[in-house]
């Protein structure tokens, strides 16, 4: 409650939260495509590749103008992305090696330029590295407006090319065969992704920007099989973690905003992995246990049925050891008794004596239908 009040009153906080929310939404949407195309780490490489552009622009202009620096970052980010795509297409080098190579050599070049700038007489270069390492708390109203403007453009482009992007993410070969140009779509998607990364750099920094591009998409993927739902969910997760992260970092002393946002979104991912409907590990585990028990029950019943067929009197009782098919006598017996008790409860078997069991009419019918269905029927 206190945090809500703070959010409504504190102007600076509103600005930062708004910026983080926009960033979360945009990177959630674009991240969904990156995750589906198995290019999650592109964000990491591009955000590193932006450094030489920033340093180069500063070297030429000598002033710290946000728009110009962003433009430099954008251009060198794009060059990096196209290098990665070209290396990936023309050589046998794997995509991840191309990423790592571009990331390290571009960042290295950026460091070279930064140290070169530092040595220049009376250059006011202090704080240039904040562009790379990010500082959400220093976001200004103007920065947030730029972010909103670019964010809206990016979302419009996604809406406009929705069909192509969808086709490209799931079946590029088919798309090519019916006449869509993969190269063009790749260029469009990479370009808007680079723009999104560049606007994120300033607030959360290089390393954390890559998380924002991966995590919302992965979390959203767990809840749905539809691309449209996935994109919307990813955007919502992005917004939620952006706002919550900003709030936490403003309520607790000495809490850096970017890392808190990343921790929040990571927790959302872990929660989704465990509890998402259908796919979640937790539900999968329960379903798995149920299936296993079901199969064991059927196995015991069929065994009982086959034993019964060997006798003139089908209701002839059998000892637990005979019914048990496993090698492990002690543990196996206990297990079989448990299964048999369950069968008795359902009326498929009868306990004759304290460790002998016989099948019932209902059980015979059930066993026959299981065999006819090749085990496909559950008890």
């Amino acid at each position, binding site marked *: 409650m206190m945090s809500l009040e703070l959010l409504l009153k504190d102007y600076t906080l509103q600005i930062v939260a708004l910026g983080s929310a926009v960033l979360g939404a945009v990177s959630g949407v674009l991240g969904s495509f990156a995750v589906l195309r198995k290019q999650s780490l592109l964000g990491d490489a591009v955000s590193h590749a932006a450094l030489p552009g920033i340093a180069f622009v500063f070297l030429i202009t000598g002033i710290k103008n946000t728009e110009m620096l962003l433009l430099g970052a954008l251009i060198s980010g794009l060059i990096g992305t196209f290098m990665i795509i070209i290396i990936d297409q023309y050589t046998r080098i794997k995509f991840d090696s191309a990423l790592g190579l571009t990331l*390290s050599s571009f*960042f290295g070049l950026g*460091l070279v330029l930064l140290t070169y700038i530092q040595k220049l007489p009376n250059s006011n270069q202090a704080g240039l590295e904040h562009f790379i390492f990010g500082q959400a708390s220093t976001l200004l109203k103007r920065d947030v407006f730029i972010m909103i403007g670019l964010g809206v453009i990016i979302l419009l482009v996604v809406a406009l090319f929705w069909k192509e992007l969808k086709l490209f993410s799931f079946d590029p070969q088919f798309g090519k065969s019916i006449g869509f140009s993969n190269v063009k779509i790749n260029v469009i998607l990479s370009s808007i992704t680079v723009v999104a990364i560049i606007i994120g750099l300033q607030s959360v920094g290089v390393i954390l920007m890559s998380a924002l*591009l991966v995590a919302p998409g*992965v979390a959203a993927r767990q809840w749905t099989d539809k691309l449209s739902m996935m994109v919307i969910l990813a955007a919502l997760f992005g917004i939620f973690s952006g706002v919550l992260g900003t709030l936490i970092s403003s309520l607790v002393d000495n809490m850096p905003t970017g890392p808190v946002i990343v921790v929040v979104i990571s927790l959302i991912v872990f929660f989704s992995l465990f509890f998402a409907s259908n796919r979640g590990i937790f539900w999968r585990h329960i379903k798995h246990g149920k299936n296993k028990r079901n199969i064991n029950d059927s196995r015991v019943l069929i065994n009982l049925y086959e034993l019964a067929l060997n006798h003139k009197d089908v209701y002839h009782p059998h000892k637990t050891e005979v019914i048990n098919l496993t090698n492990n006598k002690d543990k196996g017996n206990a297990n079989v008794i448990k299964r048999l008790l369950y069968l008795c409860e359902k009326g498929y078997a009868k306990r004759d004596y304290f460790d002998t069991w016989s099948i019932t009419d209902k059980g015979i019918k059930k066993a026959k239908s299981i065999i006819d269905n090749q085990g496909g029927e559950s008890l």
Partner: protein
Amino acid sequence: MTPQLEIVIIAVIVSAACSVLGVFLILRKMAMMTDAISHTILLGIVVAFFITESLTSPLLIIGAALVGLLTVYLTEALRRTRLMAEDSSIGIVFPFLFSIAIILITKYAGNIHLDVDSVLLGELVFVPFDRLIVLGRDIGAKSLYVMGTILFIDLLYVILFYKELKLVTFDAALAAVLGFSPIAIHYSLMGLVSITAVGAFEAVGSILVIAFMIGPPVSAYMITDKLRNMLILSTLIGIINSIIGYRLSVIFDVAIAGSIATVIGITFLIVFITAPKRGMLTIINSRRRRKIEYAMASLLLHLCNHENTDREEIESNRHSIYQHLNWSKKFLEKILYKALNLNYITLNNEYLKLTPKGREYAIRCYDDIGYSI
């Protein structure tokens, strides 16, 4: 030993240690794990620092290496759920652990010297200041001995387990069938990568660690197809790059790590363009040659098909044939020029006619296509 010489030797040792392991990483599609590990070890350093309250304790290296392994394990665990691809699992684990490290540093170690930027970027210039003193005598820079030991272990590991590494890298299933454990090899390799990254990270910073682990092996991969040659070549490239990078950084007075990383990138670019078998130039050339060869065969086959039929006049007119073949006019002119030069066809008024040589060529092409189908 002068500090300059020490810096160069340390750079060379680090490059050799990293590029030997890097070869296996890029072949096993684990290149980005180096990026992940070289960032998450910060968490190990921070936690070990809180326990020992000292920045020089060897526990820091152990803690960092353990977190490196933890990163590998968590990534594997996430991937094994089959709920996400491998690259996504890396992209989730490493920013998460790294963020925790940054939060811990800002919250609890704000007043202690544990500067994030300097940890990440590293600076070789300061390496010679950290001396190893044994029995009161200065025997050289500490990093020299640390990295020397690590290089020795890495080389020993690769030489001793060369066969196993090769098998697991190229055919993990076969290795498992033959009784080698791909998991044991995987974790021992990643353990060494962690230790190497930790040791190198102190000296050269994480960016150069990534550059050394990926750059030289990838360049070597462009040149050779043999694992042994690739190991030797990538070590050599790493060593040469660090010497050139250091010289350039002295000349221009810039960051050594950045300069070496840039040289590594440029080396790759040169290899990428000019490599004998897989370079861009070769690929573009051979694609163009194949395109022309194919076009020539299409033209000759087209003429051959319609030779002595009643449609011959329509099909072999030089002003309309490009429409039949679905080519541009310019492309047709180019191919025609070549065909005339090679004496495959003759120009009779406006009609193209096959020469005996051209007919023979067309028939041979037809047979080749028949065989390949």
